[in-house]
């Protein structure tokens, strides 16, 4: 059995190319979005963030008294700087309806090319299917499957709002939008639990020495791309949860509208960005776990995998399980 200990030492590029390429992609995306594509006042958004660090969430960056009579009317009634973020909501709406299908098509094409270059699905040659190893505990299976179901539901219902021109509105899309909010709330604890149990890098600090450890934390080690997927799930999931929760919690009451509307616009801006970026990593996760390798979903459902499967496709997991058995 080949383990990482006996593997020859790889070069810097080979070890880190996933991080470098993803960072490069993010840098280009950030440059394109914030300096070329956006019509929001990014300087305003930046100063607004700084103001929030001081506990002021109004978005009114200069003292109210320093405004003219006319400006005071605007701010007092409807919140500050309508033109700073709200047009971004409009632009994002048009972009998401009209350009996102092309973005998704490009992403699917990229994964299709990767699939072809890889030579199809990775399959394990199993000669003793009865010799199985317990990889996932009942708790892990429950959490992972629930996470898959909830994320899938949130993805479909969330984009049913974005692509409202396709659904045409009405009762069913309305209930999809309503349940998006409620299922989003239910996803918060699931996201937190998955974040904890999927933190495989914990093994850098804690030795997985007990069976109980294996029943809580997922087994094995991350490859660079899977680690990036995990970090993206944590980071952008956090953005989606915080922004989504605040959008739901800060109910649009006419009495408090002027005080909270700018903050809600900012949260919607964050929710849009988080959902657009996490979609890529969601596709990447689906590709990595479900498409490129055969047998992941049955393993999560039953919790068991043939020993030969692990020997060939996930030796790090088998190594950890054998460590518990010793």
């Amino acid at each position, binding site marked *: 059995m080949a383990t990482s200990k006996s593997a020859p030492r790889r070069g810097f590029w080979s070890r880190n190319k996933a991080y470098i390429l993803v960072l490069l992609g993010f840098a280009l995306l950030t440059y394109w979005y914030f300096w070329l594509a956006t019509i929001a006042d990014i300087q305003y958004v930046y100063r607004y963030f700084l103001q929030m660090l001081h506990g002021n969430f109004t978005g009114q960056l200069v003292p109210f008294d320093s405004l003219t009579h006319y400006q005071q*009317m605007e701010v*007092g009634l409807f919140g500050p700087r*309508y033109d700073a973020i709200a047009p971004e909501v*409009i632009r994002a709406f048009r972009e998401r*309806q009209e350009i996102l299908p092309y973005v998704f098509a490009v992403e699917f094409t990229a994964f299709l090319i990767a699939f072809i270059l890889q030579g199809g699905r990775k399959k394990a040659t199993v000669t003793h299917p009865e010799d199985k190893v317990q990889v996932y505990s009942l708790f892990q299976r429950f959490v992972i499957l629930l996470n898959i179901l909830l994320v899938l539901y949130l993805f479909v219902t969330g984009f049913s709002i974005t692509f409202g021109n396709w659904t045409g*509105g009405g009762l069913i*899309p309305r209930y*999809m939008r309503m349940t998006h*909010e409620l299922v989003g709330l239910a996803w918060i604890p699931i996201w937190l639990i998955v974040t904890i149990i999927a933190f495989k890098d914990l093994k850098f600090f804690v030795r997985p020495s007990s069976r109980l450890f294996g029943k809580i934390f997922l087994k094995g080690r991350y490859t660079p791309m899977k680690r990036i997927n995990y970090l993206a799930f944590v980071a952008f999931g956090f953005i989606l949860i915080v922004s989504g929760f605040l959008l739901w919690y800060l109910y649009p009451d006419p009495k408090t509208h002027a005080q909270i509307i700018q903050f809600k616009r900012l949260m919607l801006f964050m929710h849009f960005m988080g959902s657009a970026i996490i979609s890529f990593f969601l596709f990447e996760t689906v590709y990595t776990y479900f498409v490129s390798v055969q047998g992941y979903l049955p393993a999560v459902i039953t919790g068991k995998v043939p020993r030969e499967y692990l020997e060939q496709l996930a030796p790090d997991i088998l190594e950890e399980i054998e460590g518990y058995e010793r």
Partner: protein
Amino acid sequence: MNAYARMKFYCDEGRCIECNGCSVACDEAHELPVGISRRKVVTVNDGVPGKEFSLSVACMHCTDAPCEQVCPVHCFYIREDGIVLHDKEICIGCGYCLYACPFGAPQFPQDGAFGTKGVMDKCTMCAGGPEETNSAKERELYGQNRLAEGKVPVCAAMCSTKALLVGDEESVSKIYRERVMARGKGVQSAPYGWDIAYGNK
């Protein structure tokens, strides 16, 4: 010049006395549920002598309405006379119109599943909705259709100081100018929100 009148609201802040008669009349006429306020009176610089003033605000029926632009399900429509209306049977209650509206006009009842937002409600300028004019369904969903009966919107009809003006934009503009000229000050600037809602006309 448009072939049709373009119906607009304007509140003269020099006349508004914050009696809230417009808001109450609107609530009562359309039998609005608690938590919905199609029209509200806002006071700026409350309690500051010489600087305090009030405005009655609702949907401004913008010429280039941002709510209509952002609605993902295209539930808004603009009548030939410029009144911005929406179809509640299409609306999904996403709230995009609320984020896009510079006047805070869209309202959301908390009657969705488990207290989530229901479909959007806003000022119709007492012009009803897409249902059959003066039908029971139109009244239930959108309230009174006073324009179809040849009446003025109830808020403006109720306004005791006639601060709240409604009608064709040129007529409203003319009345406001005459009022300002009568004060002897001349027109210092466009009325509040005029450039945002109606463009530079």
